[in-house]
């Protein structure tokens, strides 16, 4: 069973979002996504300062099986990228929701948050795929 923390928001393309309460949000890939992808070998992150549109490809996670695009669920400016992953991409596997975060973004349009899935809806999506 996948680990799906209830305090986070999710997307259909398996990103998670943590609302930080200071006008920023942190984005990563879900535990389910990292399990499917397998052992990470490279992570390519957006440059801090980059302006992103919701739904845009902005990062790449490459595992021994595949290279996958990560889409930003929210529009805004990137305020930080997780440099730790440059040397230790496996952190995405070992700690997808904490040290394995990918980037942090300054929210531009709070209305976009409503588009995200809650933990329950995301769990349903994962269960459906697992069927």
């Amino acid at each position, binding site marked *: 069973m996948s680990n799906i923390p209830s305090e986070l928001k999710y997307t259909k393309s398996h990103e998670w979002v943590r609302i930080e309460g200071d006008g920023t949000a942190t984005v990563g890939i879900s535990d389910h996504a990292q399990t499917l992808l397998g*052992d990470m070998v490279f992570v390519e992150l957006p440059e801090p300062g980059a302006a992103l549109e919701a739904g845009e490809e902005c990062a790449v996670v490459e595992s021994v099986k595949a290279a996958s695009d990560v889409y930003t669920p929210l529009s805004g400016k990137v305020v930080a990228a997780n440099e730790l992953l440059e040397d230790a991409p496996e952190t995405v596997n070992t700690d997808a929701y904490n040290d394995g975060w990918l980037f942090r973004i300054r929210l531009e349009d709070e209305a976009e948050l409503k588009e995200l899935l809650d933990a329950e809806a995301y769990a349903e999506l994962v269960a459906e795929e697992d069927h």
Partner: protein
Amino acid sequence: MNNEPLIFEHSRPGRINRAQSAHLGGDLDDIPDTLRRQRRPGLPEVSELDAVRHYTRLSQKNFSIDTHFYPLGSCTMKYNPRACNTLASLPGFLGQHPLSAVRDSQGILACLWDLQEMLKAVTGMCAVSLTPMAGAQGEFAGVAMIRAYHDARGDDARTEILVPDAAHGTNPATATMCGYSVREIPTDAQGDVDVVALKAAVGPHTAGIMLTNPSTLGVFERRIHEIARIVHQAGGLLYYDGANLNAILGKVKPGDMGFDVIHINLHKTFSTPHGGGGPGSGPVGVSERLHPFIPIPLVGRDDNSAFRWLDEHDLPQSIGRLSAHMGNTGILLRAYVYALMLGREGMVRIADYATLNANYLMARLRAAGFDMALPERRATHEFILTLKHQAKEPGVTAMDFAKRLLDYGFHAPTTYFPLIIPECLLIEPTETESKEALDAFVEAMVAIQAEAEKDVETLKGAPYSLPVRRLDDVQAARELDLRWQANGGMAS
């Protein structure tokens, strides 16, 4: 002996083979000093026997189509008839220089012309160029022609190529190489392109779509005519990836499906030895509207029916040359002999038996309890088995099965492709395997499943019987180390 040293490590100073034949080289005195090497090249110095043993030992470590069932999905690892190799190696072919006068080259030009005609007939395209030297180059040529077509019409708003999410990774790579952005089109639950999503995606920005049919999911794209109409109506072109042509050879023609350009992997469908980066051959076929842009040279005929090269004078809008001469001519000749031996009737048998073997193997594996990714669809020449339930309980993955199959004497199927199916094995038996070979594979899969249920660790440790055990994929990807240097061993 598992650890065969590199040929350089067999080297001993001064241990060389001198040719016993007369020295036939010309006078080298007219080569300017600036072009002469100052130091001897760092070649290994070994006896002939050392060299023979070294390479024979390496070959004995290989899984190959000559030694093992090789159901590597999407790769069409079928038997390569010896006659193709023998005839392509006739001294007249081997001694043929690409710059020989055309009047002295009529024989080889006739073979290549014939091959062009056969490929036209079997694909339903209006012209074929044999020059692309691999599938990837054929893809590049195809999309470069799509670009040239739009450019020639001044239609520069077309910036996007559509690619289904089940596609080979080479498709988006090719589109990107040709300066296009890529838009992914989803696949529906039955394995077909999602036509609603396609309709929403096309427009004045659409340069074309790249499709494989049968798709990489091992099923025939049933709405191909509708897809062709949608893309053509939007002003885009259709590119056919020939990866899975083996399934339909002589049965259905990509030209009839509405494709404007196609590449054919001769090394797969026309059975020349491939794999391990060996020489490929990726001819392209075009519809009428792309004909002016076809890569040169082609073989044509003059007024007296003599064969001649067609070049930029004949095709001034051609995208140009992709190799110094005529592509991998040796591979073209092997494919030509293969096509001649089969004839029109034999081509149909390829598709018949490739499909029969795949469906037989799928039915037996399903009866043995394995899950298929698309259980409601008939397979084409290959099918996808998913081990997602085994991955949860007892906790063995597609990779564990693949590695254990090696111990049972089978090359592993393709693993983890297409990406949209979890824990999958893509299995392509090809038409050249016997029922006994297929049955033996089923038995091995059943035995491995039983091992998995008994003790997961058996599979996790596989393979046990090969020169190298389970490799560390992560380290291999992150610390790639391919160079050997004298005195220093491995260097990065």
